[in-house]
């Protein structure tokens, strides 16, 4: 549905987006993750045709956004970081205007507006001036605006920023529901949000894609068979016993959480299963294992890992 190929954006010497390529399949919800200033908004602005790329192409449903902008833009609804709302209009006036510029015929306008207002639940404020709405309502009007003209693709830039926890949950549910009938690209710097909503995640840092995959895949792949252990023995003894096990790269004591025990995290050398050797070694050393648990990285940790690796290299 969306093909992004080798997209680069330069501002003078500064490279905001650096040869980014990915595709989004029909009906998929793609999460775009990265710290502030990573190039998420720039990439989204390029996909929606607001700004143009210095290099590379973007195709929506096979249509190039630069060659046939009108055709391509019909297929995209965009909620930018700051919802583009006219403060002096009422919600109904505003949505009507968006219908005008998105060329929605007057025959289907009333029905589709009613449907959209029902989905995003702004029916009760349609007569109010936008400047008097709360942040949550403004955001929802922004989403409503993106849905007008029935685009197949929705691009949502930080849709939950500035909302209170209940509104965040509502917004997530809304996105999940929209995901059933739309292809969605969503950006965020909040990880739980992305893992809760998205089918696939792309992590971007300093304009480059540093990791991509499903939430599960990412945490497994980067987790790489780490183990967390709780052993009823003094720390020294445990570490000494573990260090003799072949295939262990690193033993990391984490301190005592239960009286008379110690917690350690064990990193394997490669992606090999070290659970058996670890058990045997500790049992020989007479250190009873009270708990052993594979340690998948949480998305936070993946995020920290890939983004700090990147900065160490550069």
């Amino acid at each position: 549905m969306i093909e992004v190929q080798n997209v680069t954006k330069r501002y003078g010497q500064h490279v905001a987006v650096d040869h980014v390529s990915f595709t989004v399949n029909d009906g998929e919800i793609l999460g775009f993750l990265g710290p502030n200033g990573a190039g998420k908004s720039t990439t989204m602005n390029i996909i929606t045709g607001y700004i143009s790329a210095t290099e590379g192409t973007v195709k929506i449903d096979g249509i190039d956004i630069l060659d046939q902008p009108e055709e391509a833009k019909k297929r995209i609804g965009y909620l930018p970081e700051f919802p583009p709302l006219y403060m002096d209009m009422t919600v109904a006036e505003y949505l009507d205007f968006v219908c005008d510029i998105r060329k929605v015929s007057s025959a289907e306008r009333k029905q589709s507006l009613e449907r959209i207002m029902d989905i995003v639940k702004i029916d009760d404020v349609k007569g109010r001036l936008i400047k008097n709405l709360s942040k949550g309502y403004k955001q929802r009007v922004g989403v409503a605006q993106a849905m007008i003209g029935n685009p197949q693709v929705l691009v949502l830039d930080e849709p939950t920023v500035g909302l209170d926890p209940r509104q965040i949950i509502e917004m997530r549910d809304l996105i999940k529901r929209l995901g059933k009938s739309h292809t969605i690209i969503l950006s965020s710097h909040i990880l739980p949000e992305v893992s809760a909503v998205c089918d696939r995640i792309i992590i971007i840092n300093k304009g480059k894609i540093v990791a991509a995959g499903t939430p599960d895949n990412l945490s497994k792949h980067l987790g790489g068979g780490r183990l967390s252990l709780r052993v009823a023995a003094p720390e020294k003894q445990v570490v000494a016993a573990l260090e003799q096990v072949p295939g262990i790269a690193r033993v990391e004591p984490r301190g005592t959480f239960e009286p008379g025990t110690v917690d350690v995290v064990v990193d394997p050398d490669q992606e090999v299963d070290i659970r058996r050797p670890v058990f045997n070694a500790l049992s020989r050393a007479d250190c009873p294992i009270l708990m052993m648990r594979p340690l998948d990285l949480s998305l936070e940790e993946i995020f920290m890992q890939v983004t700090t690796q990147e900065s160490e290299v550069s």
Partner: protein
Amino acid sequence: MIGVYKKELKAYFSTPTGYVFMGFFLLIAGFFFAISNLFPMVANYNGMLGNLTFIFLIVVPILTMRLLAEEMRQKTDVLLLTSPLSVGEMIIGKYFAAVTVFLITLLITCMYPVMMSFFGDIAVWEIIGGYVGFFLLGSTFIAIGLFISSLTDNQVIAAVVTFSVLLLLWVMDALQSVVPTDIVSGVVFASALVAAVAIWLYSAARNIYVSLVAAIAGGAVIAGLYIANKDIYTGFIGKVLAWFSLLNRYNEFSLGILSLSPIVYYITFSAAFVFLTIRNIEKKRWS
């Protein structure tokens, strides 16, 4: 285009802008009408209109300052530029909305000559000619203001710059009489013009060869004309300024003459600035 036009028109009257423009315009127009027609009981309406043209200096910035600057500041330009609407439709819609507000205001002032007609004969066609000229002049200034509004995201800057540019156009007539008229200064001025065009080409196209070719071609034309007939450069600066003087051409309308050339001139001038605005907005997406 219709959508943007309707929205802008509504915006003029849901914010104070439209009322301030109309109120101020009508106040000054009424004042002038009273001073120059009503009290001295003079029927020369076009003379009053001619004096009134100075009002554009103040009211045109009010009308045009927010057109694009405000969209950029509120970041609502994203909505327009990511919709299936072309930039041209968007700019033209905005331009016509501003012109419409101006036209409505102008039509209200038509009651002055109607009032005068109750008390004697008025030169109907002469006044219509005057109005056509006044409208075209105002529309041209609005196009200039629209362009300036696209250069900044600050309304105040847009207003001040528009005012300054219109003022410059105003004093151009006065400048004509004081600029040097000798051949050397004419040649220097022509060279400066060619250099300016070349630099503009370079900044727009980022192509050194195109601008070099333009500069060399321009230089050749200047040299060729100098060899062929150097008297052409006598008073050259004044001629160029006169050609750009928007007010000069208004005088014909004042006399009630409706000839094609000034009408075409004004419309071309407006179209050029609307086009420049479109280019400017499109260019922003590339930088």
